[in-house]
């Protein structure tokens, strides 16, 4: 979806970032005293989740930029930290949790990056390895056409040795990053899925081939890479199609440049179901065999998750036997039966990922 209007929080109106974005985004702009009226307008739209993708609100982040990943105690979390640069997305995936997560769902970009830099500097001074990503509340690279956000972040991370930045995307917006001296402290990451899932569920995202070409360009520029098979969707023939994606991935990318690959079976908050049914009436994604997980989310019946995750993990191992493959939000039983081990045997998932980051990106503790 394209942005049609720009709303500027009066408190952010004089910020140089605001001026820079205005000069690059040729849409009508309005300065507003605060978010209330805009929130109301988006809420009142027939399709708030769609309307929220057409208006961009430039504002200040009054909370923390760095946040802990919202894992739950029932399933193993990766211990990631989220860098909250903005929220929501211009692409439109049927399963996107952000449609239901924000009230209202609205594109927001935080211009007060001087505060973000301060928080990052503090974080860099902690003597432990940190894995930080911008792709949790938004797609990391949708902001590239109008901002220098990721360029700045890549450079900032290049200047330290304890933290890695993961930029996760379904876009191909990497051109502006390829010439940077990244020092392997930024991981370029793509969410991958089968052609069918991309076609039927991921409106406005880049095609699989385009994502892989962009990843190959990142690899050629020396970036460490990561891939996320998330959400893995179960349908007739899915295992063969996921295998094919793995095959295409490693035909395009040298396995030794891949830091990690995550696998996450489709799961969703119950509220999302009605929203998907309304916004994506042709999508069948919510009609799988779901149960209510221990965290209250709908999840595929466990034996089905195990079967598809095991088959995909096998395919990946076939092409990249030494790659760090992990599961997103699964318990030990699923780990054991799909990957053949549990995280505790390797020091826990955060430890596994820290080691992979140390190996590929040269980050170190102390």
């Amino acid at each position: 979806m394209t942005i049609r209007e720009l709303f500027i929080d009066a408190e952010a109106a004089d910020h140089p970032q605001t001026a820079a974005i205005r000069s690059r985004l040729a849409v009508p702009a309005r300065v507003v005293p605060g978010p209330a009226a805009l929130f109301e307008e988006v809420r009142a739209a027939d399709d708030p989740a769609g309307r929220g993708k057409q208006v961009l609100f430039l504002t200040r982040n009054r909370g923390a930029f760095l946040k802990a990943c919202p894992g739950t105690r029932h399933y193993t979390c990766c211990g990631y930290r989220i860098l909250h640069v903005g929220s929501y997305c211009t692409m439109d995936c049927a399963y996107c949790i952000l449609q239901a997560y924000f009230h209202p769902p609205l594109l927001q970009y935080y211009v007060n990056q001087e505060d973000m830099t301060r928080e990052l500097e503090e974080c860099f001074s902690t003597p432990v390895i940190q894995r930080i990503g911008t792709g949790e509340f938004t797609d990391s690279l949708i902001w590239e056409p109008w901002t220098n956000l990721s360029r700045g972040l890549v450079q900032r991370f290049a200047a330290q040795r304890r933290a890695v930045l993961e930029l996760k995307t379904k876009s191909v917006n990497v051109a502006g990053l390829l010439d940077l001296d990244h020092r392997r402290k930024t991981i370029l990451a793509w969410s991958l899925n089968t052609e069918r899932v991309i076609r039927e569920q991921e409106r406005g995202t880049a095609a699989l081939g385009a994502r892989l070409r962009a990843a190959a360009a990142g690899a050629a520029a020396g970036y460490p890479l990561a891939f996320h098979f998330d959400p893995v969707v179960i349908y007739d023939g899915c295992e063969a199609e996921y295998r094919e994606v793995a095959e295409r991935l490693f035909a395009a990318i040298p396995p030794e440049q891949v830091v990690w690959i995550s696998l996450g079976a489709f799961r969703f908050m119950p509220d999302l179901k009605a929203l998907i049914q309304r916004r994506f009436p042709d999508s069948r994604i919510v009609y799988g065999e779901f149960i209510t997980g221990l965290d209250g989310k709908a999840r595929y019946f466990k034996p089905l998750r195990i079967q598809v995750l095991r088959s995909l993990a096998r395919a990946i191992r076939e092409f990249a036997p030494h790659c760090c493959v992990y599961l997103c939000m699964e318990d030990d039983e699923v780990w054991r039966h799909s990957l053949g081990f549990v995280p505790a045997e390797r020091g826990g998932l955060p430890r596994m990922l820290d080691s992979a980051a140390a190996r590929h990106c040269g980050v170190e503790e102390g």
Partner: protein
Amino acid sequence: MDFEGEWLAAAPLPVPVDAIDAEELRFRITTRSDLEPLAASIGRLGLLQPLLLRAAGRGYTIVSGFRRLAACRQLGRREIPARVLSLAVTDACCARLAIGENALARPLNLIETARALALLTATAPDGCLPVEDAGALGLPAHAGVAARLMRLERLPAAVREGVQEGAIALAMAEELGRLAPDAASAFARLFRRLGLGLNRQREILSLVTEIAAREGRPVLEILTGHELEECLLDPAADRGHAAQQIRRRLHRRRFPAIRRAEEGFETLRRRLDLGEGLQLTPPRDFEGTCFSLTLSFGSLEELLELRGRLDALARNPALSRILKSKAEGFAPDPPPAGPRPPS
């Protein structure tokens, strides 16, 4: 309201039955079609309340009294007492009179209420519901509620009939209204036949629509397929049994892997031969990893006896099979040897 004068001025006259256009149903509110009790009463006591008609060319149209006319016809009456409104009385006035005669005399059912509201709206000069008049006539005066009710009027006949007889609640009628008319009618027929409560209706609606979406087939095809037909045609099955069969079949089709696992677990649990006092419960939806075993006893002797059975239970191969096969969905017997998970 401006019709009081007209109404009072119209003294009852005998009107030839054949001069009344019984096909013009515009002002009809009632959904009742049973004539016998009314005909019997008229036969014994005469028509106590005259019809209300409006002059139309050489004859009359009915404003109120559709059933009374039909009953008199059935009794072979040639003339019938009626008050006659002049041609100049507006549709809006006639609508109010028709509604008033019905709504103020007895409680209207949902379909009659919907008709009354739709009639008020259709005859209003601006095409909008006159909310205050609706309230004065005993109809819902809230625009939102009225709009919901009026949508009933546009539903297929089978759904309306279900609402009328109380077999389909307004909430369900609205859900059915979102489906194709043929599918909505098929659901309505099924619900009326099975006499299900709202929650069960919702369960069946959701199972069928989700199966249709999952399998890429029309809803009607699932509803009228032989799988459900068989349950309805079984002469030995009463309504409750048929409903249970239908739900079971729909569940199996909607959640085949889950059903297989439930059945596999049951088969294995039976092999444990737990007997009295021991109960094995799996984690909910087989998602967690802990099974629980409940011991029920009333004396020390019973507890000691259970302890012995516990030892035997722990050695029972079916228990080990339950624990080992959980991740695969409880296939009661081990699968043939295949490739191992990657390590």
